[in-house]
């Protein structure tokens, strides 16, 4: 898989190094393997399933889940949990539409305000978790509920304004010989920015250290709480971008359209091998997790499977993946993915 690169090393130990790297990323291999298996099943089960354009379109349509899952992954890596993602996505939808009022000229303003709002919610989450020492589950749950109440009261259930037509057409537009959807590019762009931050900067190094063992990181002079706040702010911003992407895709603002995303992002991260204990897992895992969820849903929908059965299958896959990951992390060196 692309996520596993052999490091430039002495020729004698290269095979050994590669082997070790592969072993370390076992849970990544499993999640990408499952995604690949589902992709093949999708291709076989549906007519014209092998067309790359169709696969890319499906991924592009679910970019909002992918972007939101990146934020959730970062928070999980910090040892936390963000249950305010759905509400923040709805908030971004409501706020950006109210700013845009259906005018192309106001797109930048709408996006800026939505991202600022998402970052602000993330900041509140982060401060409640790191300063007020409220457990992440409760802090983000409470903040999410307040945000939800806030936009319901503000809109009275009827979102104001509208999506700018320019943004709407961007959601359908494609680049590179009109094959790759813009929203897929957006997803990958967000992924690259966050991956650079996590894997190529000292900030990222310290972030992983703080997530894996806050005490040890603190003793080594890492200002742990700053990294925790950073994780939630990042998640809030990702959720805001995801909310705008969803609104542009559906074409109208909604106060409840993103409700299911909170738990879906958790599922995507978990299927991608991110552990709840913090510091274990990689950003690339979330991509595989989203792909698994998306292909699974598409296969079941194309096969006309009852939505009730879809729920059962999704739940079973989630539990099964967790059992597999648990075995993988439990065995061996235990430093999986670090």
């Amino acid at each position: 898989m692309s996520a596993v690169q052999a490091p430039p090393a002495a020729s004698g130990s290269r095979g050994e190094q590669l082997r070790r790297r592969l072993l370390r990323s076992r849970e990544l291999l499993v999640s990408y393997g499952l995604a690949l298996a589902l992709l093949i099943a999708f291709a076989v089960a549906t007519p014209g399933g092998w067309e790359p354009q169709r696969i890319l379109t499906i991924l592009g349509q679910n970019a909002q889940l992918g972007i939101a899952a990146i934020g959730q992954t970062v928070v999980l890596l910090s040892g936390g949990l963000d249950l305010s993602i759905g509400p923040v996505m709805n908030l971004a939808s409501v706020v950006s539409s109210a700013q845009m009022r259906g005018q192309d000229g106001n797109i930048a303003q709408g996006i800026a305000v939505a991202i600022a709002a998402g970052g602000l919610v993330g900041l509140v989450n982060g401060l409640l978790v790191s300063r007020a020492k409220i457990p992440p589950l409760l802090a983000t749950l409470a903040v999410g509920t307040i945000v939800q109440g806030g936009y319901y009261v503000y809109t009275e259930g009827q979102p104001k304004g509208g999506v700018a037509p320019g943004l709407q057409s961007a959601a359908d537009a494609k680049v590179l010989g009109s094959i790759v959807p813009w929203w897929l590019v957006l997803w990958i762009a967000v992924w690259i920015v966050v991956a650079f931050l996590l894997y190529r900067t000292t900030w990222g190094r310290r972030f992983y250290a703080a997530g894996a063992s806050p005490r040890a990181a603190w003793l080594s002079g890492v200002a742990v709480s700053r990294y925790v706040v950073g994780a939630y702010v990042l998640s809030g911003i990702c959720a805001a971008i995801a909310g705008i992407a969803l609104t542009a895709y559906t074409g109208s603002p909604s106060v409840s359209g993103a409700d299911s995303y909170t738990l879906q992002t958790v599922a995507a991260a978990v299927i991608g091998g991110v552990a709840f204990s913090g510091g274990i897992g990689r950003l690339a895992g979330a991509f595989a997790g989203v792909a698994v969820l998306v292909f699974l849903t598409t296969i079941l929908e194309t096969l006309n499977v009852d939505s009730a059965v879809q729920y059962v299958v999704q739940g079973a896959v989630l539990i099964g993946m967790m059992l597999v990951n648990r075995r993988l992390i439990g065995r061996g060196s235990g430093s999986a993915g670090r």
Partner: protein
Amino acid sequence: MSALATSRRSSPLGTTTLAGLKPALFITLVSIVAVVIAAIVSEPFRSPTNVESLLFQMAPLLLVAAGQAIVITTAGIDLSVGSMMSLATVLAAASSSSAGAVVAIVVAVGLLGGLGNGIGVVSGVNPLVMTLGTMAIFRGVALLVLGQPGGVVPADLLTPLTTVFGHVPLTFLLALGGVAILWLASAETRWGRALFAVGGDEAHARRARLPVRRTLLIAYSLSGLFAALAGLALVARIYSGDPNVGDPFALDSITAALIGGIAVTGGRGSVLAVIPAVLLLALTDNLLNLAGVFSYWQYIAKGVILILTLAAYHAAGRPTGLLTMARGGWRKRGGAA
């Protein structure tokens, strides 16, 4: 019991049982003060019909929150209770059999579903993910049983469920009884002692040769059972089955348990504290309704209450407080793995 311990006893209950009530004192006082203020300020609040509807509203949340409290005491969480409640309502409305058969089916499904959660958690799946998965599964099964809200609840089941003594509904009394039973079970029995030990530190409990697996299995089974019973209590309010009606109860039950001072880290708290916590939540909803405020203010009120209670526990410096830990409660189990 040694002679010393027995001589200190002034009540039939164990000393630890009474000590466990201390953390509940604060929330009890707050809820009593709130009720008194509400009764003085609001004329419609005092009306018997309003009291009756308030009690009807409290019954399902009491049951489901008590089960949730048991699971949180193990340092776990049960997100599947909402779907289990929905499943119970559709089972009651779709199977046109006698009341006895319906109750037997609902109880069996609740116990089995909870046991499934327990088996997953015991085999090392994170409780949040495990119950997230079963939440989807229970919802799917509920939709298979009854695709749309509706169905017919057997009359011989509906009659006892909607019985009211004066203005006190039977379901409310049964719910209170259920909470009391869970409280006594967690405070007085050998299983209860193991429950707190497992929640406090699972690794230590294992080293002390406590039956960790069995304790967890029973805890999750009870949560499933009480969620199913809460579903029946909900039938008394909606008179039908609805595959989505339980959804908000997953988060409401967690909120109630935590406001009641059950530590999210596990091992601390008293199930009985769920009663004032549920009262406080129901009261807020009720007052906002009576005031004719736009209903979504309730969301804001709930969130603010949760944060304020947590801050108050923190300020009181109680170790029960949910605040001694900066990070997720499941970290302990995941880390020990």
